[in-house]
């Protein structure tokens, strides 16, 4: 054991830095390693928090020990130790810790640094800087380290420290004032405050003399003016590095309200007083703006430049630098440059030719709008002064006509029209011909206003597209039940095995249904070692439980498996996997629970899904007959072919088994009852079905789609029987009583499901005899409205405003008082009267939306209403809501019947949602729906109008995307026109911001209408005619 290490430990434990320093200075080379090792172990020991008898945690390291270990680190550590966690945090070279270090100890640090000269200091500082810049020394310390050659010249560090110096300076001034006040009042100060006071009073002699400090603003300026290195070495670096200069500030707390002091205040003042070179500042701002810095930093450079109020001469002297900014990718920089250049164009010495080189790359940049309009105004002035430039400028106006923004096009067209139509021709015949050719090539890209201006030169150009094909929503929808859409069953064991991994992923209903079907169909074909082969998937499903466990331990864990309280379809399937692994000897799905957790409630459809899996698991149990599930889809995406259902029911009868009511309910809801050929075949097969109730039900459901037969009289339910049945159903779903109801008990409810599957929106008074509940005699169509909700926040700490009141505008779906449905089989009614207050349903919707939607392909409206109510009351949702919206919108892309009202409102929500990615997807849904005929543009337009009028979202979110959707096809254009004609009348008479953009889009779509403008639209336009911003657009439209 090294004696030096022992001595070192004693010093750390019992002595001070003053005694350690001579030891470290005299340390022999051979002793460095043992001391380093001991320093590390002591650091680790003293830095570890220990629990005290009173239960509190305490870190044994004392401040003196922290300093001494830091000194030891400087003297003995290699780069590896230096870069370890402890050594980098709160070290004594950082400003904050250094301020609390006695001057004598600071001298110790410098003594050791000069002696040891650690080679890793630069790397260490850089690493610290990138991890947490606040741990770095201040500017003066860095400068001193560099001056002594202890630190390499690293501009990055200096730049950051320069930016930070304003805050640190202000912070020190505040501390000094506070401590001075405490001393004046005779308050006791602790040891650290005394050190801090000593350090601060050594810096400002006024403090030591008991005199008041000057005002903060004056003191800051004086300090900065007196720091030559900071002024001439540090400040220029701010323009070459990405620092926090834009957000660094301090406060002058001597005046009330406190005055914020930022670099933007300080630098112009230093320039005014001659401490900074104004010309250099101006140039540096422009050079910094060339970089691809953060947007706020670029804004800061821009503001600094503007705050210096450069004269035209100063800007003219920097025209090259300003011109260079026109190549910047950010529009804000380009607009700034154009703005700074606009009054220089006509000055002598301005080089137009160089500028035009850069201009060519701007003319079609979609992010530039106002700047380009301003540019064209400058062109016009230039042309007026030098008509000879016409051949140079005309092609540029023409190029700008390809800009996607109608306003830019119109402005370019205006200038071009003036140029082409000048009384004294400015262009020769060849140049004019070139321009006309360009105009004709632009074709349909031209917006209506631009086109209107350029009419004289567009005579030979193709006419704008005319909507020959009017859009109309599809009349009916027939599912494709054919070979092309048939779902291939799992072929063999290997396919089943590898499908397991896919089926256990969240919300993969197609794979999950095939897997379930495969489990049942291939039960006799599992290989002898199938349990071992399943084990990798068990591990993937429950890694936290089974990783590293033996077979026996695994079996033991699985025997006592707890699936938690809030289950979903994936949990059910994982339970199936566990059951499968155990040979289905011990049912597992029954162990899953559909309970509420906190305020999160399961979706009621999951009860049916769970019951269906209970039935499947029972059929897989040893000795049971593995009949297939009735509700397994046979055709994409989730249709059950009528012939397949009847064939399975016949197989059940042959096997002497009764169908499971939950399975049968889902089979009915997925039934492609209106696939004519398959339904006709199925009707013929029905005669073989023995059960008269089922036969009658299916004959009714599969009747030809053009003539829905009346429902047979359904027997009124006996009150006591209903109550009993309801009670049993409730128990059944919750899992308390596994025995399901009989088919005979379920049959009346199955009629209700069949009726709403076949005709979701029709009144069925016959069903009123079953119960009075939404979704029986009448469909559940709650509708929606925009509600203004007032919220009050108590803020007693704020005496001026003890209450903060604000309002939100929320999409509200009215819901009746909570009441349980008469049967859990009524899958179209289950959501209608769910409790709302303090109940959240978003998690099950988020986890299983595709699965839930797959259960109700014929009538998803009730689920859509629930979705709308549960997740989209505002357009500013969190990532969960966005994910849910994305899934819903993706599901809407598939072909199907026309969108019902809630699906249309969901699409409207998507088009207005706060997240651009969600809006982009919603537009794709709209375009796809216009293609398939699912879109109901009038309903969508009305919904959008109501949402916008209710301030659900700003108009711009919709208006900005409309131009890109135009011109895709005549049918789509017509659908968009219909949409806008339904939307505009819903908007308020007091126009919303950016209504003009909607009108511009409407103006582009109107020419193809082929019919007069609807009266309600005309009426709304007339009310807006008096509004200045809309007058021009309205007049054009009404002309």
């Amino acid at each position, binding site marked *: 054991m090294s004696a030096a290490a022992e001595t070192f430990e004693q010093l750390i434990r019992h002595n001070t830095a003053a005694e350690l320093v001579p030891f470290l200075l005299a340390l022999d080379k051979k002793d460095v390693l043992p001391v380093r090792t001991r320093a590390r172990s002591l650091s680790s020991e003293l830095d570890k928090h220990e629990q005290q008898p009173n239960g509190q945690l305490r870190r044994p390291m004392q401040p003196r020990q922290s300093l001494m270990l830091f000194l030891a680190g400087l003297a003995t550590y290699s780069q590896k130790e230096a870069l370890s966690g402890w050594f980098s945090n709160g070290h004594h070279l950082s400003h904050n810790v250094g301020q609390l270090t006695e001057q004598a100890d600071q001298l110790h640090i410098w003594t050791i640094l000069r002696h040891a000269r650690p080679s890793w200091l630069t790397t260490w500082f850089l690493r610290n800087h990138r991890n947490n810049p606040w741990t770095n020394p201040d500017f003066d310390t860095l400068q001193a380290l560099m001056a002594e050659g202890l630190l390499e010249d690293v*501009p990055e560090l200096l730049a950051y420290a320069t930016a930070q110096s304003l805050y640190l300076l202000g912070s020190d001034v505040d501390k000094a004032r506070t401590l001075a006040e405490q001393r004046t009042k005779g308050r006791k100060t602790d040891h650290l405050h005394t050190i801090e006071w000593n350090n601060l009073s050594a810096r400002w002699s006024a403090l030591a003399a008991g005199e008041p400090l000057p005002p903060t603003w004056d003191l800051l300026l004086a300090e900065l003016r007196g720091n030559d290195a900071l002024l001439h070495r540090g400040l220029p670096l701010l323009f070459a590095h990405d620092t926090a200069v834009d957000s660094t500030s301090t406060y002058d707390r001597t005046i009330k309200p406190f005055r914020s002091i930022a670099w933007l205040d300080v630098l112009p003042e230093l320039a005014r007083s001659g401490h900074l070179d104004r010309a250099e500042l101006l140039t540096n701002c422009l050079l910094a703006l060339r970089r691809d810095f953060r947007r706020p930093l670029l804004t800061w450079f821009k503001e600094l430049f503007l705050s210096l109020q450069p004269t035209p001469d100063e800007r003219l002297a920097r025209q090259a630098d300003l011109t*260079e900014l026109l*190549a*910047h990718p950010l529009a804000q920089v380009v607009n700034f440059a154009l703005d700074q250049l606009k009054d220089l164009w006509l000055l002598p010495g301005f080089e137009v030719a160089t500028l035009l080189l*850069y201009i060519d790359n701007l003319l079609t940049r979609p992010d530039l709008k106002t700047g380009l309009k301003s540019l064209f105004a400058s062109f016009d002035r230039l042309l007026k002064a030098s008509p000879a430039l016409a051949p140079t400028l005309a092609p540029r106006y023409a190029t700008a006509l390809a800009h996607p923004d109608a306003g830019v096009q119109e402005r370019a067209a205006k200038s071009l029209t003036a140029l082409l139509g000048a009384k004294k021709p400015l262009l020769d015949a060849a140049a004019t011909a070139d321009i006309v050719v360009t105009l004709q090539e632009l074709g349909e890209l031209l917006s209506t206003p631009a086109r209107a201006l350029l009419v004289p030169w567009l005579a030979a150009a193709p006419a704008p597209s005319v909507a020959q094909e009017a859009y109309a929503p599809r009349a009916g929808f027939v599912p494709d039940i054919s070979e092309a859409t048939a779902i291939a069953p799992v072929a063999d064991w290997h396919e089943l095995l590898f499908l397991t991994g896919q089926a256990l992923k969240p919300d993969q209903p197609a794979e999950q249904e095939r897997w379930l079907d495969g489990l049942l169909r291939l039960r006799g074909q599992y290989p002898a070692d199938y349990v071992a082969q399943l084990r990798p*998937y068990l591990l993937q499903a429950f890694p936290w439980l089974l*990783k590293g466990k033996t077979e026996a331990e695994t079996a033991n864990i699985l025997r006592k498996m707890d699936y938690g309280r809030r289950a979903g379809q994936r949990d059910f399937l994982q339970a199936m996997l566990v059951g499968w692994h155990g040979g289905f000897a011990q049912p597992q799905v029954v162990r899953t629970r559909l309970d509420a957790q906190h305020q999160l409630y399961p979706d009621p459809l999951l009860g049916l899904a769970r019951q269906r899996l209970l039935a499947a698991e029972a059929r897989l149990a040893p000795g049971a007959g593995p009949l297939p599930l009735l509700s397994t889809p046979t055709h994409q995406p989730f249709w059950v072919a009528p012939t397949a259902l009847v064939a399975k029911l016949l197989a059940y009868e042959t096997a002497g088994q009764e169908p499971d009511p939950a399975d049968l309910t889902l089979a009915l809801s997925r039934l492609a009852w209106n696939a004519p050929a398959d339904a006709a075949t199925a009707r013929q097969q029905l005669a073989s079905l023995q059960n008269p109730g089922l036969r009658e039900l299916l004959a009714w459901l599969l009747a030809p789609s053009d003539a829905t037969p009346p429902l047979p009289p359904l027997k009124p339910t006996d009150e006591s029987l209903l109550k009993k049945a309801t009670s049993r159903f409730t128990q059944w779903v919750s899992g308390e009583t596994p025995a399901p109801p009989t088919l005979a008990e379920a049959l009346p409810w199955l009629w209700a499901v069949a009726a709403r599957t076949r005709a979701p929106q029709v009144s069925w008074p016959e069903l009123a005899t079953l119960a009075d509940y939404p979704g029986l005699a009448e469909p559940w169509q709650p509708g929606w409205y925009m509600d203004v909700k007032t919220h009050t926040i108590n803020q007693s700490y704020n005496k001026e405003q003890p209450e903060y009141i604000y309002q939100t505008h929320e999409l509200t779906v009215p819901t009746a008082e909570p009441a349980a449905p008469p049967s859990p089989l009524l899958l179209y009614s289950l959501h209608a009267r769910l409790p709302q207050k303090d109940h959240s349903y978003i998690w099950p919707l988020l986890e299983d939306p595709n699965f839930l939607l797959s259960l109700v392909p014929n009538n998803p409206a009730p689920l859509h209403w629930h979705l709308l109510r549960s997740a989209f009351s505002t357009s500013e949702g969190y990532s969960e809501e966005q994910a849910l919206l994305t899934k819903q919108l993706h599901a809407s892309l598939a072909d199907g019947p026309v969108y019902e009202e809630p699906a249309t409102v969901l699409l409207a929500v998507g088009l207005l949602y706060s997240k651009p*990615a969600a*809006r982009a997807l919603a537009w794709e849904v709209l375009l796809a729906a216009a293609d398939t005929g699912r879109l109901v543009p009038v309903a969508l337009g009305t919904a959008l109008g109501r949402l916008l009028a209710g301030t659900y979202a700003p108009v711009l979110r919709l208006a900005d995307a409309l131009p*890109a959707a135009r011109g895709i096809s005549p049918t789509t254009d017509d659908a968009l026109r219909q949409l806008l004609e339904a939307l505009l009348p819903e908007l308020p008479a007091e126009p919303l911001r950016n209504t003009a953009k909607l009108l511009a889009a409407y103006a582009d779509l109107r020419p193809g209408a082929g019919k007069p403008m609807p009266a309600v639209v005309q009426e709304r336009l007339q009310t807006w005619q008096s509004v200045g911003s809309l007058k021009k657009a309205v007049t054009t439209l009404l002309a």
Partner: protein
Amino acid sequence: MADFAYAYARPSALTHSAKGNVLALAAYAEDAPAGGTACFFSGGLANSWLAARGLTTLAKVVASRFVPQSAALRDPIVTAGAGLLRFEAFSSCNGVYARLDLGPDALEGEFLASGTTNVDFNEPMVNALARVSRTEPVLLRVGEQEVVLERAAGTVTERKVSLPERWIKGLTAVQGYLAEMEERLTLTKTQATQLLQGLPAGALRGDYFLLLRGPRPSFVPVASAGAVRVGGAHRLRLLDGLLPLCESLRVYATPDGQASAFVLAMGGGHEFVLALSAEVNRGFSGEGNQLDTLLDELPAEWITGANNLFRGNETFNPTLFALENDLAPDVVDRLCASLSAMGLLGFDLASNQYFYRRLPFKLERILKLNPRLKNARALLEATDDVQLVGVGAGGRTEVRVRGTDVWHTVLVGGAEPPRCTCQWFTGNQGQRGPCKHILAAQLRFGAA
């Protein structure tokens, strides 16, 4: 695994002198010619402003990261040869590959040697590049004519840069993808300017698909016929400074949509390539798209011979090479995969040719940089970690391969793609190359 350490004798710099501006890129060649680091190129830039824009964008790519990650590197690789300078770099997350090609028309100087080197892209130099103006002549010097690598403590500015191995792994995957790619769209200058217009703001989750709607390029979140899949499309914003400057833009993609590339023809011999991995969280270095090809080891002397040949030729078309040398295409593929696994080959979409990078010829890197292959071989070293269960119809072979705590069922051979019960395969379904279990089974019982 240790990173490769590169040391620069002094920082790269753009210096101003009475004779003009000189862009001196400090180099460190791992495979340096005897006698020190060579000067690969010295001369003028025909359009210094455009070249500076390209280099600035390259620096932006290197500094970018699209997943939470540690500090960025700023040191691209430059390859001088066949009359071109090719600057290549990856984003810090390794999911974006960028290359600036300066062709003969862009250069007015002399190639003093062929070679590949790291060049130092420090902050002051990036700053200086941003300040190059349109009319400013700049001389470019890659490498140094008189370099003595020595450390004189405290007196010479020397910077060490750790080059992650994933860069070389990334180069392997990228060239594999680029060689597979097909041209899918060509955009005019105006369309290129509008490319990013329809891209929703913010970081995009999920795939986007690029298509032309009428004359407008559009990114849509739904696949359709003819649309190009672009994963993590917001990464294209790295190009926002270059798009208005390009003359045309060609879009390429692999047939399976696992990578896409955007080639900006800048005019005057300047071309910029940006390749994107399939997803933001998929770095090129983690792709195993070359593993199948690397499965069968070629004789070392074949690889050495090919290396010598390509080193001399500097560029070659694989099909022509196969025809000229009477080699089967799959042998050429395996040769290319072996060489690129050491980082030696890159692929030029414009000329449909491989180009050679003068990096060290180290055969051990093939295994070292492909851990899945290495782990598969390790499985084979144990006597019973890979066991045959049976051979089914069409040669479909069932194998049990030892995993962590479990035995995996693996199917290889036959017409269908291989399968495994491991987590990697379940998650990726073979899209990122085979897992080690499949590789081990294929190595023992054959891939076909």
